[in-house]
């Protein structure tokens, strides 16, 4: 009886010591995010594949997508040129071109991971709808995304070279936000059924 009580107490102690948290696999969020249906404020969840997506019905929205992408790139190019001008005017010792770091400083790498997570989600929503899109729509969106990616890459490289530059840091974040906004707007082009 005493042995039984000892065992029961030991069981209770072991149960009490069990971890309350067990981290799920790292990639699980990606799978969850892929399955999240977009929804609008005040509206019930909207299922993906709720209808066909035709750019022709939403010319203004499509124009915004292109404008967002172009705007993103233009600002990046402008500031990068300013940076290059400053670099050229700097003393030779500081003008040495540093190799582009493959990784960003920790605080930006963390920021980039957060952005990448959002991009992944919106990109997957878009990818799932690709087959139902008009080819011209796909082409427009992809062109805009390439411009956005290019702007991000430029800002990223500049930030890796000059991590203390707040202007570049702001542009880096802004370019990601613009890409996410672009993807979000593209998703919202889906017609209501």
């Amino acid at each position, binding site marked *: 009886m005493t042995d039984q009580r000892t065992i029961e107490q030991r*069981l209770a102690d072991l*149960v009490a010591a*069990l971890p309350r948290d067990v981290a*799920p696999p790292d990639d699980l969020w990606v799978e*969850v995010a892929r399955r999240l249906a977009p929804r609008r404020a005040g509206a019930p969840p909207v299922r993906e594949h709720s209808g066909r997506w035709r750019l022709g019905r939403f010319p203004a929205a499509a124009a915004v997508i292109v404008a967002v992408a172009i705007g993103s790139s233009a600002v990046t190019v402008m500031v990068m040129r300013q940076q290059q001008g400053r670099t050229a005017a700097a003393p030779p010792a500081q003008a040495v071109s540093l190799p582009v770091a493959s990784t960003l400083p920790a605080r930006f790498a963390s920021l980039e991971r957060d952005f990448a997570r*959002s991009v992944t989600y919106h990109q997957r929503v878009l990818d799932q709808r690709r087959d139902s899109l008009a080819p011209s729509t796909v082409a427009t969106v992809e062109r805009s995304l390439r411009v956005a990616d290019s702007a991000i890459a430029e800002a990223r490289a500049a930030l890796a070279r000059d991590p203390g530059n707040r202007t570049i840091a702001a542009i880096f974040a802004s370019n990601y936000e613009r890409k996410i906004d672009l993807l979000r707007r593209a998703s919202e082009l889906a017609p209501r059924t």
Partner: protein
Amino acid sequence: MFDATVGGPADRAEVSRIARAQRGDVDAFAELYAAYAGRVHALCLRLTGNGAAARELTQDVFVKAWEALPAFRGEASVTTWLHRIAVNSLLMQRRADARRSMRVSLADDDEAAGMAGEGTSAPVDVATAIDLERAVAALPPGVRRAFVLHDVEGYSHEEIADMTGLAPGTLRAQLHRARQLLTKAMSQ
């Protein structure tokens, strides 16, 4: 929309995250996922006793949570709400599996009785009395569910009855059976 009475900054941040996620902000939902995925996954692992099934169940829980979030009013804690979704999802899966395999009875007692041999026939390596997780995983499903929710997660009989629809007598019997099987495994 969620409008819970809140205390400190952490609570306010939580309320803000929930409110943003309710409006469709995926980033806010990702933050909720980061905060609760460990708790949910731990429960799913123990409820299913299987890594692959736990992964699938955890995924289902968060997808369903996203869909149900606009209706979340903060009447229960987020953890309890997510756990309830996990239990409901598991029960639905089991019922679907049962229908597929043309089982006639879905009663918990029958399930527990039917699975008892299967659960106890597997050799449980508790020679060191440390691998409790493994011993729990080897419990029959209905018995395991009762044990995990009551003894591990600390839910009351009433809360478990609310989650699972189990009658109090059935729950007590399953808890007794679980402790019996575990203590037996530990004493071997």
